[in-house]
């Protein structure tokens, strides 16, 4: 009987943990892109409050369409949903995140799998491939100011605003 009761308590405790862990993942998310911006308003033209690096953990405070108002350290700002994931991202050595360490057993992703190392290996066996223009096109820079002018002069709109 005592065995049975202890099992019931054990299962109840686990269920509670399961639920609270689920609730926690809904409230906290990770940046899944190289860098995202917390903005003062839910718009890609909103003033940048602070930039958050890959793997940074943010707390969700409010949602408006595809935009989430988040807390990142002492900063508050709007982040577009496409830059966030509910997964935890463990960063590899050399990369830093202000949100501290991530425990073992949680999902490790950053810098793993198909990464620079794998690309280099692939390039070594496919010497006909030239990445010069891939690197060059990735360096083409468009600023928020340029987009803002392009939109207003062309009588366009930024389609993806929150609120």
């Amino acid at each position: 009987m005592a065995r049975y009761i202890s099992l019931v308590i054990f299962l109840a405790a686990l269920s509670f943990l399961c639920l609270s862990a689920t609730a926690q993942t809904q409230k906290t998310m990770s940046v899944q892109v190289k860098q995202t911006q917390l903005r003062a308003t839910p718009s890609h033209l909103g003033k940048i409050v602070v930039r958050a690096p890959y793997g940074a953990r943010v707390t969700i405070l409010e949602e408006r369409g595809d935009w989430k108002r988040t807390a990142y350290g002492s900063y508050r700002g709007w982040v577009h949903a496409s830059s966030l994931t509910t997964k935890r991202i463990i960063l590899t050595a050399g990369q830093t995140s202000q949100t501290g360490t991530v425990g073992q057993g949680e999902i490790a992703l950053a810098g793993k799998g198909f990464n620079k190392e794998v690309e280099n290996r692939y390039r070594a066996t496919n010497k006909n491939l030239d990445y010069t223009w891939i690197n060059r096109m990735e360096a083409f820079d468009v600023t928020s100011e340029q987009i803002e002018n392009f939109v207003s002069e062309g009588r366009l709109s930024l389609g993806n605003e929150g609120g």
Partner: protein
Amino acid sequence: MKKFTLQIISFLALLIFCGCAAVETATTVATDIAVQRGTITKEQAASIRTGTTAVSRSLEEFTPEQEYYIGRSVGAVVLTKYKALNDAKINSYVNLLGQTLALASDTPELFAGYHFLVLDSDDINAFATPGGHVFVTRGLIRCSRTEDELAAVLAHEIGHIQRRHGISAIQKARMAEALAVLAREGVKTYGDEELIKLSNSFGDVISDITTTLINNGYSRAYEYQADAVAVTILRRAGYQPGALVNMLQVMGRQIKPGGSDFAKTHPSPQARIAELGMSAQTAQIPNVRKDRFIKAAGHLL
């Protein structure tokens, strides 16, 4: 003791129905408790944890970071078939236009953002990689007479990225194999053997995607989906959605049947217009849009 172990295992199976993070947290707790009770050894606990992680990982797809690396190499393969057009004027304009359109998509933020490049070819063709690299030939730019029409072309390519069509081109068996290799990854850096397996798997993935992009083309359904996304993007951004129809009409006149470009990889422009079920753009385009298009692309037309 055996009975207790069995109970834990069956309970862990039940937990699969909870979120993945919850499964992992609960697994860690359950295995910790089991180790303390002496039911299982530390090694067994570690093995159960790794197994659960692998299960939850295999249910997911590639991360944006992995899609970015896939995209870089897909782009490099595209550049073995077509040369880049070293023309700052048109490339700057296409990037400004393309990134403005990307902001109106459902996926404005990719791992390393969207990047656009014009290809030095008279072929009528365009490609988008899972990593956000978009290529469009000079021949395709020549089919557009306004900024709105060029916007329609770029928005269609962004549509392929938003709907993750590149990744869907990977054969199921290859995908399973790649995800299995990725799930086996250790905490530390890869050993030589794992790296070889990974880069072979990577090569297979690149080959599946580029074969589809360059030779076989996507299914009609995917092309229609990308057109539908393009219409949404154009509308949101304030462009005339009918510009896509104008563009397709010009393409319909210029495409050479039997060619190795769009003619081979896309449904006929007529079929796409019929699927869109909308009429061509007739309203006036603001002069500033006309002027800047001519200024940036006039020398290519």
